[in-house]
């Protein structure tokens, strides 16, 4: 029983790490109607910006997460807007391919700037916590709290602020939103910034859990995509549920499969979901 419970606990922790980038991915999809694979580079940008202020300037974890969010939002989001804006009229496939190219450019810019070495954040050492036969790292709990706080902030922004509601309105029905005086172009920029920022914050959380290198975002890209598809592309609650479900599924698979097959769980989840329930676990786009 304990290995199963431990796997579920680990899965929730893993899922929490990819929840923020998955929400970022799905936000961009909901508003701009294309899957942005540059989300991987935004995660890496955020992770490195946070690493810099953490290790070079001595910033604590909360400030580092905030810097990761802001840097990815401002730099990643505005670069994606500038680079892909002209492609939007050519359809989702073209913009999506453009996002892959942008991802490669940004990833290599990080590589040229910082090299390929693995880097870790300066974190105080703390012993693992044990309860009921289960083990969890103190840093993992902190990461989980940050992930939950980020999700709560996104929820409050979208539900209770005027601009957040406008973003949901554009995601739901852009033509009607325009008739109500909401400028879809401004909302598109905001969605890109929010999506890239969430990916950046997610990149920091991944770095806090392990280490970072220029491929930090790319390594989780499949899981992020799978989580968004699982929850229903365009659904923010769906992306969170999809991330947690995928994390648990990956950890449970490790009980019976070698670790090398872990990535396959994401592919399998996408395959099964698109075959049997293409609208996702939560059914309908609802940012």
């Amino acid at each position, binding site marked *: 029983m304990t290995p199963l419970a431990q796997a579920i606990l680990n899965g929730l922790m893993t899922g929490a790490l990819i929840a923020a980038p998955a929400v970022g991915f799905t936000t961009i999809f909901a508003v701009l109607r294309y899957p942005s694979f540059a989300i991987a580079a935004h995660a890496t940008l955020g992770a490195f910006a946070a690493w810099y202020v953490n290790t070079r300037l001595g910033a604590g974890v909360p400030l580092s997460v905030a810097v990761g969010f802001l840097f990815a939002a401002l730099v990643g989001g505005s670069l994606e807007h500038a680079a892909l804006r002209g492609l939007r009229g050519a359809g989702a496939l073209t913009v999506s391919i453009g996002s892959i190219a942008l991802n490669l450019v940004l990833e290599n810019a990080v590589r040229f700037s910082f090299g390929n070495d693995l880097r870790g954040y300066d974190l105080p050492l703390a012993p693992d916590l044990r309860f009921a036969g289960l083990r969890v790292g103190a840093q993992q709990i902190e990461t989980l709290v940050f992930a939950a706080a980020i999700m709560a902030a996104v929820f409050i922004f979208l539900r209770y602020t005027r601009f957040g509601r406008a973003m*949901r309105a554009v995601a739901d029905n852009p033509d009607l939103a325009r008739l109500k005086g909401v400028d879809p172009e401004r909302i598109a920029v905001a969605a890109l910034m929010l999506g890239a920022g969430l990916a950046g914050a997610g990149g920091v959380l991944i770095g806090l859990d392990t280490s970072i290198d220029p491929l930090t975002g790319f390594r989780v890209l499949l899981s992020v995509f799978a989580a968004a598809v699982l929850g229903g592309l365009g659904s923010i609650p769906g992306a969170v549920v999809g991330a947690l479900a995928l994390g648990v599924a990956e950890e449970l698979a490790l009980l019976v499969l070698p670790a090398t097959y872990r990535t396959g769980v994401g592919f399998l989840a996408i395959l099964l979901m698109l075959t049997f329930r293409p609208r996702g676990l939560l059914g309908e786009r609802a940012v």
Partner: protein
Amino acid sequence: MSLLAATDVVGGYARDEQILKGASIRVDPGEIVVIIGPNGAGKSTLLKAVAGLVTVQSGAIVFDGADVTRLDAMARARAGLAFVPQERNVFATMSVAENLSISAFLDPRAEAARVAELAGRYPLLTERRHALARTLSGGQRQILAMAMGLMAKPRLMLLDEPTAGLSPRAADELFAAIVDLNRAGLPMLMVEQHAIEALAIAARAYVMVAGKVSAEGPGPALADDPQIRRLFLGG
């Protein structure tokens, strides 16, 4: 002076498409004006051209003395035109309250007062304020869509087939709501398939055929015209 005058409007959804081939209509203050005609005549396209959702290639649209022909839909909404589309006219994944709130996007300070005023007129806005718009019945959804249009305190309401898909009872209730609003001083320009009922409440009406106006006159008079009855009202 007319509140709205569309003169010789030529246009369509694509740049070189001509669904409208020189259509001219006007709405005077306080009027309900109805456009009827066969499918494909360009009725809804003309309404969308007035709302700024269709490319106007030539002709002019003047609203309240100002030429709005080159303004986009947002600018026309700001000028006081409220367009209620036939379909997808509410934000389906948002609650009734959120639908009303986003409809006050241009003037958020007036939101609370407008919601209170509309709730007095349409109790369902309060009764179902937390319900997602997609869970409303067809009639309730149309009332919400009209209320969303009213949130911006428009000076002319453009209604595209408001009773489409409604039960006869719901359609009657909606016509009553439209008359009620008009009596409160709001002019309306409406495209409607239930032509006999619509002509009965219209101060003036236009019959459109193939992108042009082929007849016009007071609504009840058009409804009594034998030729109009034979061609467009099923005898």
